[in-house]
């Protein structure tokens, strides 16, 4: 309902435009879409930033009367200011937002929605339900479960594994809980779970210490490809490559390439595509440009990348 009245208002504004000058009458009404995402602080976000820019360029060419405002924020406070600025100075019609944190962003995004804008929330849900028109996200539970099932099926009973966790967040908890649940009842023992913060250097350090601490490790769930790179380096420095394999996550191109080449140390990977921002932006554009309904929840599944299907997950141009 709100949206329809907004359309009316926009149509009215367009009529005013027409009376102001006949030239403008030819142009369809301009729509401005704000895109607010965290800045590229680690590999996954780098990929997400790249896909956001790429999609905006592509959509801008395909739909000349859609205009985009992209802002990247290093923290939640900056993101709130960005969104306020978009509302105050750019008069956006739609907002695509990947909240840095759920709590602090809930009220500002709710205000955007109350102003009658189309709101798309990506990946991290707000802490209150029903604010957004469209929710696009990866499936964190499946991300952990798919990895857990692979460990369960491919390890002998009595095997020992170590886990590297990300930055302490609900997202990380969901993944780890699902992973542990998938392993429940199997004879696979999780020796340790420490935070590698989705960072290569931190993961390297944590893995070195795991290797000093545990004489027997059969597999590592690195849960992220940046961390997997650090883990692999630590393993090869300790010369224990033949002893264990590593499963990362998110589908970084270098890792996918190694799976494609049949690397024994990296048997599989689990997707969590940074391109999910592209789905969100394109669906928001279509909301304005087509009659197809674009509201609801759109959950992108996590798939297992194996040497057989790796080709279709390989994007050589993306930085991630």
């Amino acid at each position, binding site marked *: 309902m709100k949206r329809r009245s907004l359309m009316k208002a926009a149509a009215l504004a367009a009529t005013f435009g027409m009376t102001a000058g006949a030239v403008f009458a030819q142009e369809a009404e301009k729509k401005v879409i704000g895109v607010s995402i965290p800045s*590229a602080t680690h590999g996954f976000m*780098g990929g997400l930033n790249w896909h956001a820019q790429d999609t905006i360029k592509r959509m801008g060419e395909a739909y000349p009367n859609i205009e985009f405002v992209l802002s990247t924020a290093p923290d939640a406070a900056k993101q709130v200011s960005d969104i306020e600025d978009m509302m105050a100075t750019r008069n956006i019609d739609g907002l695509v937002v990947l909240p840095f944190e759920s709590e602090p962003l809930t009220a500002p995004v709710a205000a955007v929605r109350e102003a009658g804008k189309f709101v798309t929330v990506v990946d991290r849900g707000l802490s209150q339900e029903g604010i957004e028109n469209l929710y696009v996200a990866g499936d964190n539970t499946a991300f952990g479960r798919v990895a857990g099932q692979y460990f369960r099926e491919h390890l002998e009973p009595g095997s020992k594994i170590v886990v590297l966790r990300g930055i302490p967040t609900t997202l990380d908890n969901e993944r780890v809980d699902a992973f542990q649940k998938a392993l429940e009842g199997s004879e696979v023992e999780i020796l340790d779970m420490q935070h590698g913060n989705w*960072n290569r250097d931190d993961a*390297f350090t944590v893995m*070195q210490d795991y290797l000093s601490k545990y004489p027997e490790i059969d597999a590592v769930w690195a849960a992220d490809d940046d961390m997997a790179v650090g883990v692999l380096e630590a393993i090869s420095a300790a010369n224990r490559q033949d002893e264990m394999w590593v499963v990362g996550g998110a589908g970084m191109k270098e890792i996918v390439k190694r799976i494609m080449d049949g690397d024994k140390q990296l048997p599989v990977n689990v997707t969590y595509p940074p391109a999910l921002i592209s789905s969100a932006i394109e669906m928001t554009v279509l909301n304005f440009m087509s009659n197809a309904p674009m509201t609801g929840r759109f959950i992108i599944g996590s798939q297992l990348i194996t040497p057989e299907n790796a080709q279709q997950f390989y994007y050589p141009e993306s930085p991630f």
Partner: protein
Amino acid sequence: MKRLDLHTLGPIVALVALVILGALLNSSFLAPGNITNVLARSAFIGMIAVGMTFVITAGGLDLSVGSMAAFLAGLAIIAMNAVLPSVGENWGTILIGMGVAILGGLIAGYVNGALITKAKIEPFIVTLGTMGIFRSLVTWLADGGTLSLEYGLRTLYRPVYYGGIGWITWPIIAFAVVAIVGELMMRHSRFGRHVEAIGSNDRVAKYSAIDVGRVKLMTYLLLGLLVGLATVLYVPRLGSASGSTGVLWELEAIAAVIIGGTALKGGTGRVWGTVVGVLILSLIDNILNLADLVSPYLNGAIQGVIIVLAVVLQREKRTADER
């Protein structure tokens, strides 16, 4: 005199206590492999912290070193990848990369130093600014992703981090040399005396015919050089650099300097204390990983408590001295 010894011994006592604690908690703590790991990973922060000791002793501060290291690592990787086709896959290319890192470090240090001494801007503000600039530049160079060294070059360059004489790897050797030279410079060179003099009172130093601006500039140049050197040893470890490289290294370096007994307000510098401070910080991390003492969520809290405790112990002893 005896009391003075006591307070300078503070950090060493803490270090010894940590070593004993580590050995009691896990038998693999004292294994050569673990010792190599801890010392080698301390080397980057360690070399930077030795440079930082001079900057802080002269009454300055540098917040940009972590970002600078990331930026230099990015530059070195880009340079090596760029000259690879013409120079080939050999040590020449790697030497060019090392040269870029060291020269870049000197230039970056000069920029910081010149803005502070010539444009007379507060060091905190200058380096807060350059911290943001270097961090953004490396993210921009990497297009938000990761800069990676070509595979062949990596294999060739790798032994610089992992190789060495027996279990004493090159980063450990470099760190030791930097620490010894730094200690000698601080204690026994004219430059060291001038640095301390400027830090305790720069006006008096100026009236004593010390070229205050030049000496201060030199401290930032020295720090830039050491950041470059740390980068040379960092790049072969993972062969990559990204926006998340070297995050918070500046604070670790500053914390190590202060734990080691250098005064944050300047005037007294203790290079060997800094080395002990760096080792304390790495050991805390290592012990927390090796022993499941607390929830990993609390690791940061434990580090915070130990840092504050180490400084509090010294402070109490220092006021006792003054009494």
